[in-house]
């Protein structure tokens, strides 16, 4: 890829930054994973590129901020998308803010967005604080005031756009677990994420849907705790 430089090797893909038709862009290359058999690799890579594109398009329609999709090149297994300038990961953000009012407000706002996602039958499939970005609205890299940044979701490779209630419950559980293992403020955060999640469903007058998802979430959670662990 001419004019693109490698910036990061994530778990899913290599990320490059460069220019795409005059715009600063990310190129996400799902290179061949040599550890798995070729047939499986090809199948998974195809599925994930499709899942990611579909979810991004559906998120746009639902009013959820994600990088804009520029091009999906199935042959080279590369997605070109918008580079979100002046952003930081929720992981770094929460590590610096800890147990504070801004973490609380951020969590509520995040819960809102996740409920919006789920109410549109989209699940992310890999929610961690590394896959949530804070993007400054005024083109400066400052994140002290909640009103000054938007929350964007990235990395939709495991997403589904016709999600069941169970999928949504699992989505919340996966996020809870990822937070618990990463952040000291996890419990505090998740409490407020659920608060924001519930508030959104209340605002669109679909509390019955919220209750269904929440019950599933508790179900999945109990499965984890009650599982016997022998050997």
């Amino acid at each position, binding site marked *: 890829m001419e004019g693109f430089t490698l910036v990061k*090797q994530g778990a899913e893909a290599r990320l490059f930054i460069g220019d795409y038709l005059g715009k600063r862009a990310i190129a996400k290359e799902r290179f061949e994973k040599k550890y798995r058999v070729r047939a499986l690799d090809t199948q998974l890579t195809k599925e994930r590129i499709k899942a990611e594109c579909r979810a991004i398009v559906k998120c746009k329609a639902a009013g959820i901020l994600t990088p804009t999709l520029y091009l999906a090149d199935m042959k080279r297994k590369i997605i070109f998308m918008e580079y979100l300038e002046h952003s930081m990961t929720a992981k770094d953000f929460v590590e610096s803010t800890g147990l504070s009012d801004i973490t609380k407000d951020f969590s509520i706002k995040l819960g809102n967005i996740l409920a919006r996602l789920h109410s549109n039958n989209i699940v992310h499939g890999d929610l961690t604080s590394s896959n949530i970005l804070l993007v400054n609205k005024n083109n400066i890299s400052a994140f002290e005031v909640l009103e000054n940044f938007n929350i964007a979701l990235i990395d939709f490779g495991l997403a589904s756009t016709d999600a069941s209630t169970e999928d949504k419950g699992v989505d919340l559980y*996966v996020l809870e677990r990822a937070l618990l293992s990463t952040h000291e403020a996890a419990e505090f955060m998740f409490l407020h994420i659920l608060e924001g999640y519930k508030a959104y469903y209340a605002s669109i007058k679909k509390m019955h849907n919220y209750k269904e998802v929440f019950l599933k979430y508790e179900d999945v959670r109990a499965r984890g705790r009650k599982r016997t662990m022998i050997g």
Partner: protein
Amino acid sequence: MVIAIGFEGSANKIGIGLVQDGKVLSNCRRTYITPPGEGFLPKETAQHHRKVVLTVLKEALEQSGIEIKDIDVVCYTKGPGMGAPLSTVAIVARTVAQLWNKPLLGVNHCIGHIEMGRLITGAKNPTVLYVSGGNTQVIAYARKRYRIFGETIDIAVGNCLDRFARVLKLSNDPSPGYNIEQAAKKGQKYLSLPYCVKGMDVSFSGILSYMEQHTEKLLKEGYTPEDLCYSLQETIFAMLVETTERALAHCGSNEVLIVGGVGCNERLQEMMGTMCKERDAKLFATDERFCIDNGVMIAHAGWEMFKSGTRMRWEDTFITQRFRTDEVETTWRDD
């Protein structure tokens, strides 16, 4: 100088071992092997352990060349595991602790695997894949605990393999997983199977049901049992490597340690090694002596606890079938 003796019997292995400041003095073990097509049940497993525990204890003491008076602490598996075998072994540990007048420490089985793996391989702060008959977890250390980043949301990977071995009526000697591994080496045709990864979590129950329902038909269609073993291994190991890689990227770590019974599968080690090479990380793995449940790992983890000042009141030395890895405060780690 601290000498610890460890008793392990949370599943179908019973192991007793002694360790002195990171040096393994003895490591003795017996396995309860069931006929093909059958798994091990709590009652019979406990009976097996009761029958051999004193022989194994004698053997471990003799091989170590240590006199009882020189032992500093008695350690046993507090959980997780099967209730009946756990209590059988705990009773012996409690008895000798009283007979010998030594302090007694209950050890988390998973922590035993991790600390033993770190000791044997020299890995410093690895992302750990813990895979066995009852556990499937991706673990990393942070803030005084081994945190669980990913795990199975239903059955363990080893359980999935064991139960598939029963479908094919493979021998349980030396272990069903070993026999699947050998059969898989001769497999040629890859069959696409359900692949289920949710973030850093995995699920195996869907793929097992699929195998249970379709095996007969697939065998008639010309797939050999070897092809099925191969396809199953390739699929579920790819899931494990993928989630481990995700945790690795999330934590920014560059060491991977594989522990637990399934961890001695060489194909899994090979796949993990390839993944590590692709991202400049280092793989650490051990062989069957230390991967598979053993007494030394309990002794060594107990030794770490004892040295860092952990003591248990007598009434706390019970057993528990459910005991999560992240419940234990790692008093022996300061990083």
